[in-house]
């Protein structure tokens, strides 16, 4: 055991001694942050102790053993995974101190305003305009596919500040107050009948220049920091064999022998093999990360996950036959009010799984873009011929 580790565990004990882990949750989390035990690799005063990142797991294990509360990382995933590293890398001292503590504790939820109706895979085509006005910017535009916009206090947002230069060069990155005037959040209903995501309309929204992250015109570079951290976050936990949607189908197979046919059996096993191969690939990726050698295998995992979820859920409906023709809930009365905060693949009907899985090859980078990335960055094949690199943004076909 190293000295750094000893030191950290001592600090954990001190935190636990001074704050009841079963007491007020937010009070405890704030104290954890102030003790530098939030993300130990961050600097002192910003929730960390400049310790090696790998030691966070030691802290978390000891806290979990003591029954301490968590900051519910699923709920504040966008803040933790995307906003925080971006603020840390590109924010001023003042910005870091203002935002990181309530971000980590979950006092303030964050969302991400990147995609637009006309700028999906091609994020740099975005057209949300920000025009300077004294020490403020006036922002107009429409963002889409925003998770948790309806719960968020803050947003990270990329805007176009100079339409007269090529598209990658005229963008600027801000933090936006979701309570500001002119911010309208509308639920975006999806093919499953519900609305996980939102559209966000920005009409003459004023953002103080003090909420700019990075220099004017540097928005693309700042956004890369955000997206890089999104990609690292993909990969998932070490699930046991027969997890996820394959488990649902396997359960159906074992418990409903009347549905079995010889042809379905081979197809079930083909999918079982694919699922197990994908699981082992994920495990190997985790072993690589643990050994400090992250590889591009995450892209393979995401590609395979999307295809597999789609194939398995499609097979599940075929296998069920008559029952596959039925759905659980399209209710048009509830979709605006009962908003899911995460995907519930397993708690809903097979039909829901089939439909929701269609999003897996679109969200977080389409499978088509992933294949481009693999072909170009991993295999070294030539990039697409680009016609949009030197043309001013305003002259691009849209």
């Amino acid at each position: 055991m190293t000295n750094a580790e000893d030191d950290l565990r001592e600090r954990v004990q001190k935190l636990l001694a001074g704050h009841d882990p079963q007491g007020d949750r937010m009070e405890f989390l704030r104290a954890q942050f102030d003790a530098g035990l939030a993300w130990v690799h961050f600097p002192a005063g910003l929730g960390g102790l400049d310790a090696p990142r790998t030691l966070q797991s030691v802290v978390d294990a000891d806290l979990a053993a003591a029954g301490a509360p968590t900051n519910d990382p699923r709920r504040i995933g966008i803040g933790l995974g995307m906003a925080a590293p971006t603020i840390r890398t590109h924010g001023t001292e003042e910005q870091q101190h203002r935002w990181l503590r309530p971000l980590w504790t979950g006092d303030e939820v964050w969302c991400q305003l990147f995609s637009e109706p006309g700028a999906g895979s091609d994020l740099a085509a975005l057209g949300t305009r920000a025009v300077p006005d004294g020490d403020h910017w006036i922002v107009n535009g429409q963002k889409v596919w925003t998770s948790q916009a309806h719960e968020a206090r803050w947003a990270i947002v990329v805007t176009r500040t100079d339409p007269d230069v090529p598209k990658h060069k005229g963008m600027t990155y801000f933090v936006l107050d979701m309570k500001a005037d002119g911010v309208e959040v509308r639920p975006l209903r999806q093919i499953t009948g519900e609305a996980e995501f939102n559209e966000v309309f920005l009409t003459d929204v004023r953002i103080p220049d003090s909420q700019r992250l990075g220099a004017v015109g540097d928005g693309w570079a700042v956004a890369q920091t955000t997206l890089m951290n999104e990609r690292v976050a993909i990969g998932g936990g070490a699930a046991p064999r027969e997890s996820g949607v394959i488990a649902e189908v396997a359960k159906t197979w074992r418990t409903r022998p009347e549905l079995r046919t010889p042809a379905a059996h081979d197809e079930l096993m083909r999918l079982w093999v694919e699922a197990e191969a994908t699981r082992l690939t994920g495990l190997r990726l985790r072993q690589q990360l643990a050994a400090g050698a992250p590889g591009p295998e995450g892209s393979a995992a995401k590609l395979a996950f999307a295809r597999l979820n789609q194939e398995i859920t499609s097979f599940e409906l075929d296998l069920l036959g008559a029952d596959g023709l039925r759905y659980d809930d399209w209710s048009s009365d509830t979709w605006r009010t009962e908003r899911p905060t995460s995907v519930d693949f397993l708690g809903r009907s097979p039909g829901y799984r089939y439909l929701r899985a269609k999003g897996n090859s679109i969200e977080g980078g389409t499978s088509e873009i992933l294949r481009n990335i693999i072909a170009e960055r991993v295999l070294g094949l030539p990039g697409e011929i680009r016609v949009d690199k030197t043309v001013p943004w305003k002259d691009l076909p849209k």
Partner: protein
Amino acid sequence: MTDLLYSQDEELLRASVRDLLTARAPASAVLARTETDELYDPALWHALAADLGAAGLAVPEWAGGHGASWRETAIVAEELGRSLAATAFLGSTVLATAAGRSAGADDLVERLASGEVTAALAIPLSTVPGSGFPDTVRHSHETLTGTVRNVADARTADVLIVPALADDGPALYVVGAGAISRTAVVSLDLTRPLTDVTLESARADLIASGAEAVAAFDTALITGAAMLAAEQLGLAERCLEITVEHLLTRYQFGRQIGSYQALKHRMADLWAGVTQARAVARYAAGCVADADPDAAVAASLAQAYCSLVAVKAAEECVQLHGGIGFTWEHPAHLYLKRAKADAIAFGTASQHRARLAELVDLPAA
């Protein structure tokens, strides 16, 4: 050899049906109706079934129809597959009419052919041709009792044709809608919702029994499978069409996304699949129209092939529309839901492969 082309008359019929559906049931209207109490548009049905005569195409003139055939009926099915407008076509014009004609229920068939009355065949939509005569409804004391789940187009049907087991074996009955109770099913397919039908000592009129009832049941299923293939063809064609349109109008990285070769090749493969589905579906329609001895093979072949093409087309349509294709507002999801439900209707592709194996003497292991 069956004619696999479209005749000039068929193309004229297609144009009339398409004009009607384009005018009266554009995608936005079809979507909007899925959340109202009037999913079925009675005026549209009247225009289609009665004015254009679509309900009576496969019925001889002496029986009150227009004396065309299932081949022409398939054209209407193709167009309805493109449109997705909710109608009683599959249940009434295809299944009930085919069963009624086979059973010699001339009065009922005449009323169906006029389009003024609609009927449903009380079988689960997932029933596979060649599977045994159903036994969930029993006949005794002049009445029917039993439950049938997932019945297509029963929600608004005036009468039902019910296959049931009588004391002396299989039989087919006609039951008035007033005599049954119907429970709406929350269906995967928003534009062809299913209904659970319950009969409790329901009064029923016998229309066929014994071998005649079985033949009518089999004929209805084979005809249904063949007409469904035409619907799947139309659906796939439309999905290909709107996807290509999207690829031509959507720009990313300064280029039409239809200029990216990976997408072009996927569209080319899909087009090739649709082209093959057309030959297969036309063959099935032709065989059913001609009461060809190969009709059972042709119908199962069509379901084994066209089901997969339709689902593929709808899935590509969703995927290549990107985020747009994942929204409720875009009609892509309506096609996806119909395509997937159609793939289960009358049995899955894999069930049809198993049936074909029996029909063409390639025995199972």
